[in-house]
């Protein structure tokens, strides 16, 4: 693990001097994480691919401003997340504008753009869980994505979100409570229709 960190530090140092080869190594290492996190945050494959690539471009342009002791991924994650949040905001605004005058709750509008094709080996249950995750607000969906889909530890999540572990556990608790509510799994219930 330490050699991985050392490799990354060296790669970042080379990137700051303008090495595209060193940046390519970082991209190859983190492209899947970037894509799947973006997919979890924005809900469809085309946007996730576009946003993850754009995040790497912005990282390349700004990497010389990063403090030497910073690790790449937590810093990169902030860029990716900001792009995804900005994208979601624009999408909600466009949907609200196109449905001008109609009763359209913002959260439901965002969830509508979550494509079921994003889920592997689809079945009815998985589609319902995915729709429920889509209905979480951004900060709660984020911790679910990082924990369940990226399998990140609490320490890694806290580092990526610039918060402490207590905040991570608290957000996970409320995110899971909300998921239970949406899926109807609390009190021995089974999954209800969440659409």
């Amino acid at each position, binding site marked *: 693990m330490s050699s991985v960190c050392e490799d990354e530090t060296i790669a970042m140092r080379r990137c700051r001097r303008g090495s595209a080869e060193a940046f390519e190594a970082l991209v190859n290492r983190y492209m899947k994480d970037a894509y799947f996190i973006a997919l979890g945050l924005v809900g469809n494959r085309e946007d996730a691919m576009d946003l993850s690539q754009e995040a790497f471009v912005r990282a390349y342009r700004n990497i010389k401003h990063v*403090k030497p002791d910073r690790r790449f991924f937590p810093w990169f994650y902030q860029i990716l997340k900001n792009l995804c949040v900005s994208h979601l905001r624009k999408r909600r605004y466009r949907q609200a504008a196109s449905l001008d005058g109609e009763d359209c709750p913002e959260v439901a509008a965002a969830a509508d753009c979550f494509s079921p094709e994003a889920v592997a080996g689809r079945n009815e249950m998985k589609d319902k869980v995915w729709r429920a995750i889509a209905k979480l607000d951004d900060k709660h969906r984020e911790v679910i994505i990082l924990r*369940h889909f990226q399998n990140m530890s609490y320490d890694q999540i806290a580092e990526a979100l610039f918060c402490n572990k207590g905040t991570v556990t608290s957000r996970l608790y409320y995110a899971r409570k909300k998921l239970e509510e949406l899926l109807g799994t609390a009190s021995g219930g089974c999954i209800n229709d969440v659409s």
Partner: protein
Amino acid sequence: MTCHDYKDLMMGYLDDELSDEQRHRFEEHLAGCPECAGELQEFKRLKAITDEVTLAEPEDRIWQDYWGGVYNRIERGVGWILFSVAAILLMIYGGFRAIEEIIRDPNVELVFKLGLLALLAGLAILFVSVLRERIYFWKKDRYKDVRR
């Protein structure tokens, strides 16, 4: 400690993130608190359901072309910057020469020349004012180095 204080430990217990001491303390609490034990069972069921869901992996070709896509965007970004800078320089140069010709042309009325000069002076003042404001706020921005 109240049940509410054990919520964080419950998440850690569920995700196997507790130290031996924390785990022991939480299990002791669970043994005497059916409410928290019930809540933990519900969370375990939810976790099992959520863990079933995985995201679809794109084709290998997508990953093979990924760096190419990023590199093309970086390259095009540089191209756009050069294009924009060159276009601005050419417009300034062309504008300067056009204005110079108008000012030197004896057939153009003095009022028009004065109006044109006033317009340019106004634009220059606006540009300097906006630039100075930007620099002032950038220097005062306490968060400019945050999260770098």
